[in-house]
């Protein structure tokens, strides 16, 4: 508890939005980091500084500003490479979002390696952004999708997952950390893919700022995450892919910046990573993401994880003792996310009620409608924590929950 308090004192002041009063009087308690994280001053100031003092297009001009912009953009790539422990900068593709990264892989991987009747394995807990890009392949090209079941604990049923493989399975795409349960992917899922020599994409939207990521150790072939969930700007995403696969797959979009040589008869394409970065990229946002990574490194990812684990455990134990609360997923370890319902109260009501108390939580299906159907609920309320949250905030939240329950069951 002491550690967590100390950490709080050090970082809360870094986030200007945390001093905002909700409805003019309530302190903001931000428990919606899984939807998007708040931004530290350093990210806000550095992106401002980029526009004020260094801005120009990247990789094109030869003038001073172009050099300064390009340096910042490419330096951000280096930071991401280290953050993920990728082998090379060529394996880091900047996209506009994690969603774009998944779409990129689905389309180009299909084009190079798949045909009608080939199979993709997904799971029931996937976010819509890791479902719909693959639905497109099913609808357009006759690709077959298979879905791994989940256990009551919220984890993928590994035996069922294993049983889905056939000689037509070409790629697997799974969430690394469930945005509903906060449960981490069982590592066996990745080793099964390795054993069967089937590439696996990990959706790292929720894990990137809440677990230590080492793509080499994980052994994944693709990994996507978004800047805005890792304390960076919105509008920037990252696709990591092994150089082998990225080299073999065709470009995703055509345009400036991704070409080698163009004549009216055709074009050759740029080397990695430019090959997948058609058009002017979100260069300031990429820089902002790099600054966010610096910020997390400065605090220390281990400290952040320890801090969040402590809060998550604390909140879980408190909620678990309340008889009118139903927590989704089992008692297993969860990272920074807890989904729950107040019995007989819709999550919208919970969220509106808490909003007036200054507490921001997410209510709804969390872009996981198939999972909601499986859970037999229409929606859930979701708490999610970031580096700036505290145990005291959890205490205030629990008091507000009791008031909420009382109000709606009066």
């Amino acid at each position, binding site marked *: 508890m002491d550690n967590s308090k100390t950490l709080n004192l050090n970082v809360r002041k870094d986030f200007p939005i945390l001093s905002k009063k909700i409805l003019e009087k309530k302190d903001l308690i931000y428990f919606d980091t899984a939807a998007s994280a708040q931004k530290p001053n350093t990210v806000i100031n550095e992106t401002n500084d980029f526009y004020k003092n260094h801005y120009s297009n990247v990789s094109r001009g030869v003038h001073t500003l172009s050099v300064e912009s390009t340096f910042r953009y490419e330096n951000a790539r280096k930071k991401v490479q280290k953050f993920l422990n990728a082998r090379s900068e060529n394996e880091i593709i900047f996209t506009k979002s994690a969603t774009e990264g998944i779409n990129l892989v689905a389309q180009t991987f299909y084009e190079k390696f798949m045909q009608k009747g080939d199979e993709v394995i997904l799971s029931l807990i996937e976010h819509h952004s890791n479902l719909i890009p693959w639905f497109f392949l099913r609808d357009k090209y006759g690709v077959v999708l298979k879905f791994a079941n989940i256990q009551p604990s919220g984890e993928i049923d590994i035996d069922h997952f294993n049983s889905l493989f056939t000689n037509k399975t070409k790629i697997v795409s799974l969430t690394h950390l469930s945005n509903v349960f906060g449960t981490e992917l069982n590592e066996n899922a990745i080793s099964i893919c390795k054993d069967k020599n089937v590439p696996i994409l990990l959706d790292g939207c929720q894990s990137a700022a809440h677990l230590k990521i080492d793509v080499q150790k994980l052994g994944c072939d693709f990994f996507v995450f978004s800047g805005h969930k890792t304390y960076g700007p919105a509008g920037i995403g990252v696709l990591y892919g092994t150089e082998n696969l990225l080299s073999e797959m065709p470009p995703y979009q055509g345009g400036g910046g991704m070409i080698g040589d163009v004549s009216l008869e055709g074009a050759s394409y740029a080397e990695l990573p430019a090959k997948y970065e058609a058009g002017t990229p979100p260069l300031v946002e990429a820089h902002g993401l790099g600054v966010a990574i610096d910020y997390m490194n400065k605090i220390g990812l281990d400290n952040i994880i320890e801090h969040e684990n402590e809060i998550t455990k604390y909140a879980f134990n408190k909620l678990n003792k309340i008889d009118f609360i139903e927590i989704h997923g089992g008692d297993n370890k969860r990272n920074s996310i807890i989904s729950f319902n107040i019995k007989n109260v819709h999550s*919208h009501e919970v969220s*509106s009620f808490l*909003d007036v108390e200054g507490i921001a939580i997410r209510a709804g299906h969390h872009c996981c409608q198939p999972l909601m159907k499986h859970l037999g609920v229409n*929606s859930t309320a979701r708490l999610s924590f970031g580096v700036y949250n505290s145990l005291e905030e959890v205490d205030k939240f629990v008091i507000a929950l009791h008031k909420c329950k009382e109000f709606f069951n009066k």
Partner: protein
Amino acid sequence: MNDLINDLYQEIILDHGREPRNFGECDPHNKSADGHNPLCGDNLKLTFFLNDQNIIEDIKFTGEGCAISLASASLMTEKLKGKKIEVAEEIFNDFTNLVSGADEDLKVLNEEDSLYALKGVGGFPMRVKCATMAWHAFNQALKD
């Protein structure tokens, strides 16, 4: 308790949210539409019977949703039952204005109406869609 919350959740809303009136499916019906809020997953099915004098003889709904969406649907069916289509359309327009804060200029609704209880939704812009889901389904059914 906070005024905003009390305005949003007036007793009549909580009551209709807990026990929606006209819950079910009209038999027979000649108009129907589905309401859906893709942002949260709430949904409903609205059915009604429009007779040859263009009067809504019966109107019912089923579905799942929050107190605001259920209460709004429930109050809507109470209000529209027995109304001529032209009047119902005016109520629809008034209601959408009411919950989006444009309530200076209402033609047929007034403060005596139970639907006025939903005015508090205006204080929660993200909940307006909850309150209007059933109404948009009604409007859709008229067009189909």
